[in-house]
């Protein structure tokens, strides 16, 4: 009843080696119980160790990122399972233009209907590719969905009451980057960078088994990487002082790059990043636009999840290319609209 047949040696940072049916079978529940018992026994020392302010802040931010992202991940996972099980591939063939170059902007614009943040869009984009949607279009959807949906745009408008032009600027720049990345994938992308999607592994199973199998697989997979990303984001939030940013704000070029990098490192949910951008008052509007455009497309949490869903080969090429494209597009959009 497995759902996708991802080769176990690819992508995952420490993926399981070749299967050892007899030995491992009993192992993992045993390991889990051992870990839980040890943690309960050692909770006194663990609490003391986490008592220092740095560690406390780290733990709080870590838990907050996970607790905040999990509901959206579950939402995306449910949607992705529904697409995989209940929507026939022929639907997408009819809904999207046949020519991939046209399908890209249509899929990018369709991102506006998925309300949520980037955690939801990764499993959905994965399901779209498995359902036969051309990868270029699915990737345009992946990039645009967290940035251009109504919830995020409303939050942006609320966060920038004095600069309503931030909303169209964010919309335009995000759509441009999403479509450009889709077209770039059409020209340069190679399918062997993508972890081979499972063929219709639902055949021969009941729909219920296939649906829940898909949910289980996606949560275990993307969830593990989500935790990895949350660890990285919490470390940066707790350790790097914000005062470093002040020196960066003085030079316009450095300011844009600094905020773009900050967006990658902080991995804030796209529904909330506008408020953080609004408080970075020492930076130019263009630099803050770069923060808003880069954040939902490239960040540590997202990178980890992309590596988990599409494979590391893919993520290592896709994320830097997106970053390299998002920064100049933000600057150009900022120059025109802000």
């Amino acid at each position: 009843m497995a759902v996708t047949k991802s080769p176990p040696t690819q992508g995952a940072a420490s993926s399981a080696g070749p299967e050892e049916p007899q030995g491992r079978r009993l192992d993992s529940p045993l390991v889990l119980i051992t870990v839980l018992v040890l943690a309960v026994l050692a909770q006194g020392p663990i609490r003391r160790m986490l008592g220092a302010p740095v560690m406390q802040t780290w733990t709080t931010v870590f838990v907050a990122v996970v607790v905040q992202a999990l509901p959206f991940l579950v939402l995306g996972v449910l949607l992705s399972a529904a697409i995989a099980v209940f929507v026939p591939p022929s639907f997408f063939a009819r809904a999207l233009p046949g020519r991939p170059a046209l399908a890209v902007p249509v899929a990018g614009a369709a991102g506006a209907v998925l309300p949520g943040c980037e955690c939801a869009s990764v499993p959905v984009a994965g399901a779209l590719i498995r359902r036969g949607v051309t990868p270029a279009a699915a990737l345009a959807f992946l990039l645009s969905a967290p940035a251009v949906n109504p919830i995020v745009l409303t939050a942006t408008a609320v966060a920038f009451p004095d600069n309503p032009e931030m909303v169209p600027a964010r919309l335009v720049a995000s759509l441009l980057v999403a479509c450009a990345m889709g077209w770039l994938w059409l020209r340069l992308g190679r399918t062997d960078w993508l972890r081979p999607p499972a063929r219709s592994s639902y055949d021969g199973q009941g729909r219920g088994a296939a649906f829940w199998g898909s949910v289980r697989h996606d949560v275990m997979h993307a969830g593990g990487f989500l935790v990895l990303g949350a660890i990285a984001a919490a470390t940066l939030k707790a350790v790097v002082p914000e005062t470093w940013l002040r020196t960066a704000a003085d030079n316009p070029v450095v300011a844009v790059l600094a905020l773009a990098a900050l967006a990658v490192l902080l991995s804030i949910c796209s529904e909330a990043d506008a408020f953080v951008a609004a408080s970075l008052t020492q930076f130019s509007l263009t630099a803050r636009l770069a923060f808003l455009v880069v954040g939902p497309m490239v960040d540590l949490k997202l990178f980890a999840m992309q590596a988990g869903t599409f494979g590391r080969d893919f993520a290592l090429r896709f994320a830097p290319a997106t970053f390299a494209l998002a920064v100049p597009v933000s600057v150009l959009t900022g120059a025109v609209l802000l």
Partner: protein
Amino acid sequence: MNRQAQAAVLFLLGATLLHAGLTDLYLRYVKAGLRPLLLLSGAVLIAAALATVWYERRGPGGHAGHREPRVSWLLAVPVLALILVAPPALGSYSAVRTGTALQEPYGFTKLPESGPLRLALADYAGRAVYDDGRSLRDRQLKITGFVALDRDGTPYLVRMTLNCCAADAQPVKVGLTGHIPPVLQPDTWLEVTGTYTARRTHDPVNDGPIPFIEVTEARPVAEPRDPYDETWNS
């Protein structure tokens, strides 16, 4: 990780989310509005765990040997962190390292005419800085927040504002002057009674404006149910 272990992790994760959502624990980490989604996703995770066990018992499917990568084990970390440690809401450490997030409010609602006035800390700061304290003069005011000490020792009363989760939480700071208690322990929650003063300073982190309040009395209080100020959410 085999199916049983996956089911166990899914179940624990779902139960943890339900536990956080059914108590006030979740308010330390995320906005109050996320509660329905949190409970829903907890229920879905538990359902997925039960379904996994159910279909596993009915006999292995076509790919019985398939396992998830070891990175899935990391899902046990938030479970342990939430159940065993349950870290507190963000406090003075992050407040001092982050610049004040005070922004000009859209407008000011009319305040009641008489009596001591209880204000949200961010509301006081907004009126003090952007309305020059017009509505606050010659009145007894009460604001609540936790204590944070700046590197040079300036005492602030702080409330963290939150838009989505603690990762985006930002402080609003009000400086304390006047009859300050002789010993100020960072992270203690205080209800400060005082009056408006025109004194201001700039946040050393981001140059944001920080108003002051002339303290007449400071009383330790319990941490509020929702430690974050979420007024800007609505």
